């Protein structure tokens, strides 16, 4: 991860105001001062549980939402206040793949009509050339041209997600934001779609922000992984470091709660107490403190409640936001075993 970054996110904040009237409405901070970079050709995984703000970050980057504060830069150009033609050019650079395959398409439009959109909007092709390019696009994602006259609901979930990928790739973007693209798919179909992603990346040199709650899918596809908790980035680093030597207590808990797949090994998950919802986060302090095992081990130091931990370099080339990152013992003794997969 050297060289110029393609996408640079700095101090991103997004507040959502409750619907209603008057000044009594409370604002929810969905994204809280998040910064990271995506480099050309790289895939960054964004993991977190519900309420972590991962989807909002994706929507902010593709400008479906406007940030409350912070900068999003593409190749050094600030995206705020892009207008007209420049905004359209940006759309060619950054595309999105959506989660819900059922609703991601208009059920009343044929595949041909939907896939014509990008070419018509950006005036890239028309007539016979348009036809040819749509056909090529469809073949590229593993579908066939006779499918052009069908409606999206006549496809299976996996095929529909291929259509979603085709739609995003039509404008040949430099960066693709994929929001939970494989959740809701069966395991075998999920593997097909993940392979397609891997293939496209290799061949097109695509950079990708891959948003998912599924650490297995993220680990397969992403060189680097960023972990979010309640709107904040708590750890970011190369995938192996993050998995095998996580620094932040939440990252450890998250990795520990994933089934390791060691048949015969029994139930070995780390069960962390409490839920996101019942820990009223102290704005000034660490959001994870109320559920943090290390915080309890260390005798509940006041610092965790009073001072917001900032991202600092950690061993292994990553960054972590924890006051007591250094004082921690190595997390898992059986990393090699965990890594074994199913052979």
């Amino acid at each position: 991860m050297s060289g110029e970054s393609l996408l640079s996110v700095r101090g991103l904040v997004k507040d959502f105001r409750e619907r209603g009237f008057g000044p009594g409405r409370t604002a929810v901070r969905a994204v809280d001062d998040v910064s990271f970079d995506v480099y050309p050709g790289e895939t960054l995984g964004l993991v977190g549980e519900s309420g972590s703000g991962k989807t909002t970050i994706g929507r902010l980057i593709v400008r479906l939402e406007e940030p409350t504060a912070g900068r999003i830069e593409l190749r050094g150009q600030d995206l705020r206040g892009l207008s007209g033609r420049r905004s359209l050019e940006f759309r060619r650079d950054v595309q999105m793949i959506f989660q819900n395959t059922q609703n991601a398409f208009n059920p009343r439009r044929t595949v041909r009509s939907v896939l014509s959109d990008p070419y018509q909007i950006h005036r890239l092709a028309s007539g016979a050339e348009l036809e040819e390019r749509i056909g090529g696009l469809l073949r590229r994602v593993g579908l066939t041209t006779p499918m052009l006259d069908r409606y999206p609901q006549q496809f299976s979930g996996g095929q529909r997600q291929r259509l979603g990928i085709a739609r995003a790739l039509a404008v040949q973007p430099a960066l693709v934001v994929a929001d939970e693209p494989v959740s809701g798919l069966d395991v075998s179909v999920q593997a097909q779609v993940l392979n397609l992603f891997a293939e496209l990346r290799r061949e097109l040199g695509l950079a990708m922000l891959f948003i998912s709650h599924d650490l297995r899918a993220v680990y397969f596809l992403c060189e680097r992984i960023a972990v979010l908790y309640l709107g904040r980035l708590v750890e970011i680093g190369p995938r192996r470091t993050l998995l095998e030597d996580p620094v932040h207590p939440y990252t450890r808990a998250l990795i520990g709660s994933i089934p390791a797949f060691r048949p015969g090994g029994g139930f070995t998950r780390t069960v962390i107490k409490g839920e996101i919802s019942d820990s009223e986060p102290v704005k000034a302090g660490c959001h994870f403190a109320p559920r943090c095992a290390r915080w309890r081990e260390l005798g509940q130091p006041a610092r965790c409640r009073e001072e917001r931990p900032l991202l600092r370099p950690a061993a292994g080339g990553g960054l972590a936001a924890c006051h007591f990152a250094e004082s921690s013992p190595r997390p898992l003794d059986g990393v090699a075993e965990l890594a074994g997969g199913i052979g």
Partner: protein
Amino acid sequence: MNDVKTAETVLRVRDLAVEFSLRGSVARAVDGVGFEVRAGEIVGMVGESGSGKSVTMLALLGLVPRPGRVVAGSVRLRDIELGALSLRELARLRGRQMALIPSDAGAALNPVTRIGSQVGEGLAAHLPELPRAERPARILDILKRVGLPRPEQQVRRYPHELSGGMQQRVAVAMGVQLGPDLLIADEPTTALDVTIQAQILQLLLDVREQSGTSILFITHDMTTVAEICDRVLVMYAGQIVESGPVVDVCTAPAHPYTRALLDAIPPLGGDPPERLTTIPGAPPDPRAWPAGCRFAERCRLREQLGNPDKCTSLAPELASDGAGRRSRCHFTGSAAEAVVR
């Protein structure tokens, strides 16, 4: 857990078949499913969407929605033949001897009824002899047992005021409160965050530990099966294609579908592979199951064996190896293994 093999049988399902007739065509969603669940055992039922696992579950409960209908088979719970029961008797049995834990408790709880009265409904329906005055104590007791924090406050709340994990705990409480012989858990953790999943699975294991309840665990996730189940049933295209002890099935799958399913799981750790192993194609249409093996079209083993005709012409039986494992494949065994390795 150790004496599971000798324990008595709680649930015995034989040749179960469920059909859906629609616009003249008939889809046999469940076709000849048979299995047993023994006392204190957790049996996993794994399959992808359309495999028939959910319809099987609904058939066990006698809740197959129209236009579906159970056309054959027998379901015995302990010594009761469920098919012979009247609707009223079946209703009395549901929730008491056989209980369901739903996949999405948030949607399965009645949104307009307080948690306490909702848990109490089961008591009122199944234990009418229990004095009304004793119900609140029973309700609090069971909510405490499932680890619901501050149950005295929660009983007065509505479902939407609880988090997903808390809702799921309430659903578990409803399932276990009358000490059922069999608990059917329908993807009980799919809708939850991974840290909460761990909590709920731990809870189910605790329930089994404390009360010896058998659990039929329905899921699409092989990794969860591997860690909490004793035995596993793998379903494909309306049939069981393989069953056996979890460790055996997961480490040395006998059926090519099971193997493919396990291979498709992205490995966690080390250097990831360039590509994942996938299952080509899609499951067959339930309105026209193929004559031979239903997995033949997508089967790698068949390809490696040179596409023998037998696979497409003759439907394989679910053959037992005599040691508690069954597999629905013509080529299970050493000959095929030799070719594959």
